[in-house]
């Protein structure tokens, strides 16, 4: 129990430090990338020289990225996340309005993809019929080959829920990992022993195969969260859903530093939470096994 508490505390500290570092690194990446200091409005032929200069000066505060990041953290501590340069609205308002939609889409998408992936992977592992394997492989392979934008368009065309589009993007990745991990678990010698002792296939699957693969499956679960968040970007943009994904894409194209830094911090926090959670549970399971 003490070991677990220590591990949780360690994870929490590492999480905060990594999140803050993630925010800084994303700001640095954006600062160094070409196009940082530009604004599309500069090309407006109606603007005179003075107005164009004002546009160019708008980002002067962000030139020293380390000072900018430090000041934005200070403001964030007071609840002020800054103002989006591209949308002209407070970042906190934008996140508050849009995060629930993305959370819902990503959550539902993950639930759906895991349900289908595990159903296919478990049934394939249990049945061990090569035709079934071939079919599921072809299906998941085809889904992998479809651009995310096309899946999103299909959702619009066939009036499907957007969460299903996210599920279809995430499912083939989860399926393949799960299938291979279960296959590996089945190749262990204790499975052979169990069969020799007359243990039924269902019992072998749930009591002897899945527990062996569980820590790795949990790692896949943690990673699937960030895959789903990435999938939300094209799905929201195409399906016209005003979520974080759509916001992230707009922010990236517009080089909107205040918005993108905060979004990266949010995404990093979510990714770390998911993976840390998977690590902790995995540790617990390995501890139990030992």
């Amino acid at each position, binding site marked *: 129990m003490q070991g677990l508490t220590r591990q949780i505390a360690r994870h929490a500290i590492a999480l905060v430090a990594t999140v803050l570092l993630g925010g800084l690194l994303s700001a640095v990446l954006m600062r160094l*990338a070409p196009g940082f200091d530009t604004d599309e409005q500069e*090309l407006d032929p*109606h603007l005179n020289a003075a*107005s164009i200069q004002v546009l160019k000066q708008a980002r002067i505060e962000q030139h020293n990225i380390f000072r900018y990041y430090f000041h934005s953290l200070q403001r964030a501590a007071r609840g002020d996340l800054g103002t989006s340069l591209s949308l*002209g609205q407070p970042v906190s308002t934008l996140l508050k309005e849009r995060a629930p939609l993305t959370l819902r889409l990503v959550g539902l998408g993950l639930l759906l993809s895991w349900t289908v992936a595990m159903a296919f992977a478990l049934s394939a592992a249990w049945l061990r019929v090569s035709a079934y394997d071939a079919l599921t492989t072809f299906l998941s392979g085809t889904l992998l080959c479809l651009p995310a934008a096309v899946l999103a368009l299909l959702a619009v065309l066939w009036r499907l829920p957007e969460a299903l589009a996210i599920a279809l993007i995430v499912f083939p990745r989860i399926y393949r990992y799960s299938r291979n991990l279960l296959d590996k678990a089945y190749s262990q010698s204790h499975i052979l022993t169990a069969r020799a002792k007359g243990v039924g296939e269902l019992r072998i699957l749930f009591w002897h195969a899945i527990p062996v693969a569980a820590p790795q499956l949990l790692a896949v679960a943690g990673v699937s969260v960030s895959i789903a968040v990435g999938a939300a970007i094209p799905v929201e943009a195409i399906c016209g*859903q005003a979520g974080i994904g759509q916001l992230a894409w707009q922010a990236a194209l517009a080089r909107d530093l205040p918005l993108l830094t905060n979004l990266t911090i949010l995404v990093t926090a979510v990714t770390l939470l998911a993976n840390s959670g998977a690590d902790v549970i995995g540790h617990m399971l390995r501890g139990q096994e030992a």
Partner: protein
Amino acid sequence: MLALRKSILAAAICLGATGGAWAQGELRFCLHTEPKTFDPLKVEDESSVMVRYLTGGVLLRMNRQTQALEPELALSWKVSKDGKQITFKLRSGVSFSDGTPFSAEDVAYTVQQLMDPALHSATGDAFRSGPGNVETKIISPTQISITFPAPVAGLDRQFDQVAIMSAHSAKKEMAVLGPFMVDEYKAGATLRLKRNPNFWKTDAQGRKLPYLDSIKIDIQPNRDVEMLRFKRSEIDLINTLDSEYYDKVATTSPQLVHDAGPSLDTEQLWFNQVAKSPLPAYKKTWFHSAAFRRAISQAINRDDLSRVVFRGHAQPAIGPVSPANKFWFNARLKPQTYSPDAALKALQAEGFRLENGTLKDSFGNAVVFSIITNSGNKARERMATMIQEDLQKIGIHLNVVTLDFPSLIERMTQTFDYEAIMLGLANVGLDPTDQMNVWLSSSENHQWNPSEKTPETAWEAEIDRLMRVQASSADTRKRKEAFDRVQEIAVDQQPFIYLVNKNALSAVSASVQGASPVIIAPQTYWNVERLSLK
């Protein structure tokens, strides 16, 4: 008979109770980007301009169909001979959407806000023709005169973009004089406008306008999804339609699509002529040569670009002004001829030679250069690829590079690290003064060589002079002469190689009545107050 009379009376009472309004449902369409602001003075992006058009009340409105200037909130107006002063006689009995009365004071307030030096907007800059303050003189509640420090070319036309704000309303920019007002806004998703109950306009039968109850605007960046929703009747119109979708809809429902003819938009490419650019000296020599630019222009098959990329819904461009701009287009200009042989001959006269299918300059450098365009614009990407094949025929190797817009802008305006760029001008205004900052050599937007301290060539100096002449004159004939000459120089020197003028394509559902698509934005709902739904 008595029953019929009673029915007619009942209907008349109902109509009277609604103030004579002809309630006709909700119009639905999409905008491709979110409007950034509802403050009419700060409007910069296309979506905000559209919202301003729907909600803002202006003194004068250019009729998008006839291109003539018409009175709106101003009953009449007079521009002084020197082009510095304009006097308006305003309508009386008009109120803002919140009931606040409209008067000359509101016009004065709006103009003062617009000309505030701290406000940097395209709308305001259009009036800033010289240093000094603007003077507003309220002659009476319905008469005002505005004096600018320097002549403003096309002064009256500029007021088409100035939505009058209330000097007294607590609702600030949300109190409007236009046909609609903002009702609900879900950022990134939907904007709903509802009828302005105090809109002053009536139709010929005395019925209050607008006919529509409301407008629902969805934010939808993806044109494929927009098309799908139109096909499903989830939206009523598509303001700017891609040519490939035009043809597909026209096959089954030709009555739904409209080709209003060449728009004012232009697509063009230009070479980098910035002296301090990091290009090798031999390439700078090529790009500075007018003969080289003319040869490139001659080697491009504009008919194919119009026919293949735009499926016939475009015309080969002649010069900087589209023929759709009837007054300002120089009708004496001859169309560009396509002749790779003539182009090659012209290049050979400049010392270039063809060696094993590769064109080389007099120093033996193979003619290889890149053209950048913004990614995501399929038409431009396709045009660039077609031009790549055209130039291959005369031994020139063209590399097509698509970049995200900020990276492209940085190369174009800061590092000057590019060889050729293909972009376009959209929503171009009719008046040449709208393009002042493109043609003046000292301007930041003088794209092939911005911010020249002094004109680097004699022809640029001449263009500077002519543009200043047309900007400072109130004599339309003199302005036309000067700008015609600018167009001739532009066609001769080819700083921009104009490619095509796209047609204005749109789609309007059969349920919309009164629509008459035109070439000037907003193409399909320019007469929104008179649109209704079946």
